[in-house]
């Protein structure tokens, strides 16, 4: 497959982009990486994702696919001869999709709120949500892994990708606010899983360095706070 057939509109700091990159790695796919600055948004992005104007966007043979989990499923279905990303059993697929959706609804919005709000007191409820998510995802790992190393079993799969893509940003939260969330006492399986995930060949090198993310979180904080005061 020539590089020109696959293009990814990306941003180094985005956990959603990371999901797609992991999926492409799992299938050993070559692609053209187009780094989006988002400031301003490129014409390519605006044309390829007119509904949301967000990354990631995968462009295959000139046709765009948007929304990270939709893209991951597309990759899995299109390159079906490579290692599977979604579970093969329909019920297991439903469970994986359920937890991925749960993570999307709860995890990043809480992180974003923690970064955006000003007072320590205001952060408390969001930390509580994140702690609850950790607890539930620890349970999900137990349920889905069936005693194997990953949510996907022997190899990383859909749910590993959905959750693992946030490990970089989790470090930011833990670092900046001095509050560890993925801890041995609360989530022993997840702690070990996180190490295995980060070391996986498809993931290596993709988790951004915490320092760089902390830097960018400062400008995001300004942007997000400004957006609220405008309302």
């Amino acid at each position, binding site marked *: 497959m020539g590089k020109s057939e696959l293009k990814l509109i990306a941003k180094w700091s985005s956990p959603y982009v990371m999901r797609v990159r992991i999926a492409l790695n799992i299938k050993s796919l070559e692609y053209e990486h187009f780094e989006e600055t988002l400031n301003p948004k490129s014409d390519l992005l605006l044309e390829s994702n007119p*509904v949301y104007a967000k990354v990631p966007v995968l462009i*295959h043979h000139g*046709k765009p*696919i*948007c*929304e990270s989990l*939709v*893209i991951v*499923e*597309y990759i899995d*279905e*299109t390159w079906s001869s490579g290692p599977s990303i979604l579970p093969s059993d*329909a*019920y297991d*697929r*439903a*469970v994986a*999709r*359920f937890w991925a*959706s*749960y993570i999307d609804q709860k995890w990043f919005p809480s992180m974003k709120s923690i970064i955006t709000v000003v007072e320590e007191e205001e952060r408390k409820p969001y930390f509580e949500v994140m702690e609850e998510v950790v607890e*539930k995802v620890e349970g999900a790992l137990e349920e889905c892994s069936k005693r194997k190393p990953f949510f996907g079993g022997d190899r990383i799969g859909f749910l590993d990708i959905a959750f693992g893509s946030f490990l970089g940003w989790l470090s930011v939260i833990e670092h900046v606010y001095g509050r560890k969330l993925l801890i041995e006492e609360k989530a022993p399986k997840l702690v070990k899983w996180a190490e295995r995930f980060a070391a996986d060949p498809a993931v290596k090198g993709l988790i951004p360095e915490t320092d760089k993310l902390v830097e960018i979180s400062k400008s995001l904080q300004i942007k997000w706070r400004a957006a609220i005061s405008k309302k």
Partner: protein
Amino acid sequence: MADEVILLDFWPSPFGMRVRIALAEKGIEYEGREEDLSNKSPLLLKMNPVYKQIPVLIHNGKPISESLIIVQYIDEVWSHKSPLLPSDPYQRANARFWAEYIDKKIYSTGKLVWGTTGEVQEKAKNELRDSFKLLEGELGDKKYFGGDRFGLVDVALIPFYSWFYTLETTGNFSITEEFPRLVAWAKRCMQKESVSKSIPDQYKIYDFLLELKKKIQPQLQ
């Protein structure tokens, strides 16, 4: 072995309607159990401990939650009849994209239209109009969002047709006039038995939503 299929449901829920439609499309026999959401059954709490919400499909004792996930599960397990997703991966991705869009926008925006007044309502109305316009664009000249075949996106959106009377009355605008293609699409869907028997009468929904509005308006405004 006969399949045991139970649906925990609540008659006015658009999300419940989606699952009813999918089950009907596939001709699946099931036991529908009506939940009293002010007094949730132990079964519901056990089968959906994370959200404690309907719809929940229980297939041979195993629960599946979240309406679009349930619909895809139904499509994958009962794959011999009435496919709801196309076979081409690009078209599947496109269907999933639009189903997710509908999930993100229509319920929450629609709720603000019938649930609030003044500036908040006006803003929501315009957002809803933008969404309907976008959806009409996606529909184009097709019979259904799925093309010739009724599919996932149609299933995702059609339950909200039961809200149209309420939206028009509370929002004081005409969806029929402003979005004729969307309404024509909705009427085509309603001609399908699987759809018409799954969606309650618009006036019953209106009464229900007005009652609900009394309870929740302070929070929304």
